[in-house]
């Protein structure tokens, strides 16, 4: 409950039309089914929602919350359980009115944006001046500010446009106390060209590999790197989001590259990286295409053994790559290099130029990353196995290990059978490191699937620890509690920083520093024992990890 007095202060902060405590409105924030493995997919209902339109208003909302012992939690474009409150007495700060592209600096290749600017919006504006923006795999509907400051940040374009956290050139941050600060050069009034300094970089307190997921104030502006776009200011397209046909610009070539096995695929990846070609690159499972685009057909065909062998085996080790050239000569060179590498590693290329309709469909779907969200279609929900990103080899191995785990669960019908493989594998920064997560779809209405989710997630965590990875869903309080002692006691330090910068702990810390016990209800006892053994073996002492 929120007191009338507190509610009135929120009204004063943002205007009466921009605050609500109506249960129906609040429930629209509390219904968070994605990555919510409860049978009733709700999170705690916020006590109120406030929609500020300026940084100053955000500050006033937070100060009002603090005066009344209410917590706050930011929400921008929202994609899952972590966007909602994790506890009672939380005011949800919905940032959708802060939707301005403040500046695009063409020359210095960056944009300053507010939280509710989405990837597609920024991309459209950037392309007009020959630039492009990194769009995360979750899609162009997501807020680039949110992924850069608060969540993860991998995308199909990471080969050329990196990881969201590494694209920050400056930040405006309403601290949990309500004070406004700016990091880096903008903090010294010098412009938005560098996010670090003077001296130690406070960017390191803002986020690490993951963000604080609303646990450390509210980010109201960010300067993000933009990247070269050699294509036209607009791409002529017809159709709707996924079923789109676009005029493929002359500066782009799209290839599917298929290899006989994982090792050859890996070697090709490494060589492509050293050749410094590629604008957009994604390893996808061929069955996944059919699953997301034609789920009904997929369900009917997936039992066909020959099809499984063809898609998961013969065509299983493949990636799709888009080359972008600044001239014909440049593009031709990149094509020559790609073909030479694929040849050397006994692969073959499928050139979209020879199948114009396919290329026409893939171009914008990949450059704008529109397809991944379709994975919801087959079962209504999905989850994903995330291991810590590092070398390409580790990520490919992770993909295989998780596929194997999935097959067991699919056989027992505890998740939807997607033919066992569904990696979202993306190389970063000229293939010098990589990301792999393995998606599994499930039906949220099925008790069996929900039970399967807990068990399979435990297997993922165990596999991650055995592979010396910090599972990226260490943002979950129960996983954090187990992992922190194995990984530099990171949460102890995170908590100390949180207490230093948020002395009254007014931000919702559920996905940032809180810890909780695992619910082992649906986990086989031997898996629980395995986890406990790993924890026992790998817990840090004051001298570091057991070597």
């Amino acid at each position, binding site marked *: 409950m929120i007191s009338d007095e507190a509610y009135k202060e929120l009204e004063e902060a943002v205007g009466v039309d921009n605050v609500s405590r109506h249960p129906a409105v609040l429930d629209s924030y509390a219904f968070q089914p994605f990555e919510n493995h409860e049978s009733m997919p709700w999170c705690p209902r916020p006590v109120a929602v406030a929609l500020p339109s300026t940084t100053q208003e955000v500050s006033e909302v937070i100060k009002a919350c603090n005066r009344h012992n209410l917590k706050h939690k930011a929400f921008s474009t929202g994609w899952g359980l972590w966007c909602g409150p994790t506890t009672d007495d939380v005011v949800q700060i919905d940032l959708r009115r802060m939707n301005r592209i403040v500046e695009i600096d063409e020359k*210095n*290749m*960056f944009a300053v944006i507010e939280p509710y600017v989405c990837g597609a919006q920024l991309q459209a504006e950037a392309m007009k001046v020959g630039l492009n923006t990194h769009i995360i795999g979750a899609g162009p509907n997501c807020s680039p500010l949110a992924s850069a400051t608060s969540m993860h940040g991998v995308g199909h374009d990471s080969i050329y446009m990196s990881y969201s956290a590494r694209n920050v050139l400056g930040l405006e941050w309403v601290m949990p106390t309500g004070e406004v600060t*700016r990091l880096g*050069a903008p903090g010294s009034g010098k*412009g938005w*060209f*560098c*996010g*670090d*300094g*003077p*001296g*130690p*970089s*406070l*960017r*390191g307190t803002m*986020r*690490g*590999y*993951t963000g*604080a*997921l609303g*646990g450390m104030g509210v980010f109201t502006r960010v300067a993000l790197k933009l990247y*070269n776009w050699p294509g036209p200011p607009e791409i002529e397209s017809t159709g709707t989001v996924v079923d789109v046909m676009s005029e493929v610009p002359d500066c782009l070539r799209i290839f599917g590259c298929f290899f006989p096995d994982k090792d050859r695929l890996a070697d090709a990846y490494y060589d492509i990286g*050293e050749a410094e070609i590629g604008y957009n690159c994604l390893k996808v499972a061929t069955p996944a295409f059919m699953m997301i685009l034609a789920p009904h057909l997929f369900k009917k065909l997936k039992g066909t053994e020959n099809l499984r062998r063809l898609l998961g085996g013969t065509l299983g080790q493949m990636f799709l790559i888009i080359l972008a050239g600044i*001239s014909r000569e*440049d593009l031709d*060179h990149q094509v*020559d*290099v790609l073909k030479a590498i694929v040849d050397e590693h006994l692969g073959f290329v499928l050139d979209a130029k020879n199948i114009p309709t396919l290329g026409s469909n893939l171009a914008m779907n990949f450059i704008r990353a529109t397809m991944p969200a379709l994975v919801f279609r087959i079962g209504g929900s999905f989850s994903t196995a995330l291991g*810590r*990103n*590092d*070398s390409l080899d*580790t990520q490919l*191995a992770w993909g295989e290990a998780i596929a194997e785990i999935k097959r067991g669960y699919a056989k027992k019908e505890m998740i939807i059978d997607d033919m066992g493989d569904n990696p979202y594998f993306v190389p970063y920064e000229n293939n*010098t*490191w990589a990301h792999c997560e393995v998606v599994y779809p499930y039906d949220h209405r099925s008790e069996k699937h929900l039970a399967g989710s807990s068990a399979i997630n435990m297997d993922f965590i165990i596999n991650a*620890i*055995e*592979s*010396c*990875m*910090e599972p990226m869903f260490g943002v979950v309080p129960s996983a*954090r509690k187990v992992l922190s002692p194995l*990984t*530099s006691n*990171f949460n102890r*330090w*995170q908590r*100390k*920083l949180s207490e*230093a910068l948020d002395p009254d702990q007014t931000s919702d810390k559920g996905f940032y520093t809180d810890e909780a016990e695992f619910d082992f209800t649906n986990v086989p006892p031997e898996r629980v024992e395995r986890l406990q053994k790993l924890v026992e073996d790998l817990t840090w002492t004051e*001298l*570091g*990890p*057991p*070597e």
Partner: protein
Amino acid sequence: MQTKSTDPKVFRRAVGPENVSTEESELEHFRTAGLSSRGEPAAVVRPQGTAQLREVILLARETATNLVFTSSAPPRFRGDTVPAGEGIIVDLSGMDRILRIDRRNKVAYIEPGVTFNNLIERADEAGLKVLMPLLPRKSKSVLACFLEREPIIIPKYHWDMTDPLLCTEMVFGSGDLFRTGTAGSPGGIDRQLKAGLAHKNPLGPGATDFLRIVQGSQGTLAGVTWATIKLEAKPTVHKIYFACDDRLERLVAFTYRALRPRLGDEWLILGARSLATIIAESPGSIDELARRQAPWTLVYGVSGYRYYPEERLAVQENELARIAQAVGVRPVPEVPSCPAKKMEEILAGPSPYPYYKTVPRGAFADVAFLTTLDKAGAMVEVMSTACDAHGYPPSELGIYIQPIQQGRTAHVEFTVYYDPADEADRARACELVEAASWELDEAGAFFSRPYGSLSRIAFRNCPDSVEALRKVKQVMDPDNVLNRGKLCFGEEVV
């Protein structure tokens, strides 16, 4: 915490008596550096590993001793290793192993005492190249260099400000051990290597990035005991070009258009004096060489790699030639007294001894800051005006402009040369640097890694950051035992 008089004997317990020195011949290197004021080093302590470093820090907490880290050998110029008052020098230069080079993942595992020459040699054997800053001094620690966010000369490989530093092991001022990036993943390093990790991911662990916090902290928050460093593939063909101009704007325009699609490898702009200082083979020839150069010279490299190297080289050369023509710049294969091959060799390694900046007059002082390339010209004007005002000929000023973050940011470095034996000359340099720094600050210069008195200028602009940084310092170094009084952690700042 109250500063106590430091008894060096205490640290024998941690590192053994043979690794504690109070010899004046060693201490003198930490009394002054460049224009910085006098410090009072009481001893040099040399830990031989992480465990000993941890013991040293814990003892410092017990005894309220100020510890100042160093990992490069002398000479030193910036003053970050000169204690503010009394202090014990913690010398990590003896930890100098290259622990591993991973060719496939292009990464080196190094301790703090590894210098560029060692690393270049080992990387070269593996077919890799080290991402070089411009002519670091021979004795400079690679790890310290990148902890200080020293810019590298190939902008396309500078994706973010932490590059090329990746994962680290560090000991906080609290004495706690921490590993960053994927080095902080479960298991020890051997186990992680067996699992295939290459320690390429610099972020985390978790939702905090202690590497980023510790970078640029001048040893005020933690000591770093090893790190992984990003290397890159050695080109199979490589050429250097020059573009000379009397107008900086044209070279800036060329740079913007070239770096946007990541053309070129090495990419830096030098004023005539800096160029002459770099290429001169004797001190006496610098003046004449400087007179023979254009006011501005852009140096850039182009490369071909394993697949179709000549074709790639040709593509790069042609694209750059087209851009050059469009902006009115003419690339040439040599400048007076420096053919491309010579410059290629210069850029590939550290400075010869003596350090190149000391060659013209015996000593120097740098004013280095960040801005954007389009503002570099205005900054040069400000600096030239300040030179005029202090009777320092602008033509004798060293100027180096380095695009970083793939061209989004520019590191600008002015070098004032002076004769350390001439008190008046030294005083003039000191006054010029001080006055110019204030004026540059007014003009928009961002002093992102301020040394010595520059801290006052840098931190006065961001009192809220100072407040936050002091809280971070309290968390990581609760007894204030690490490099007291530096950056914004002294009482006089802000």
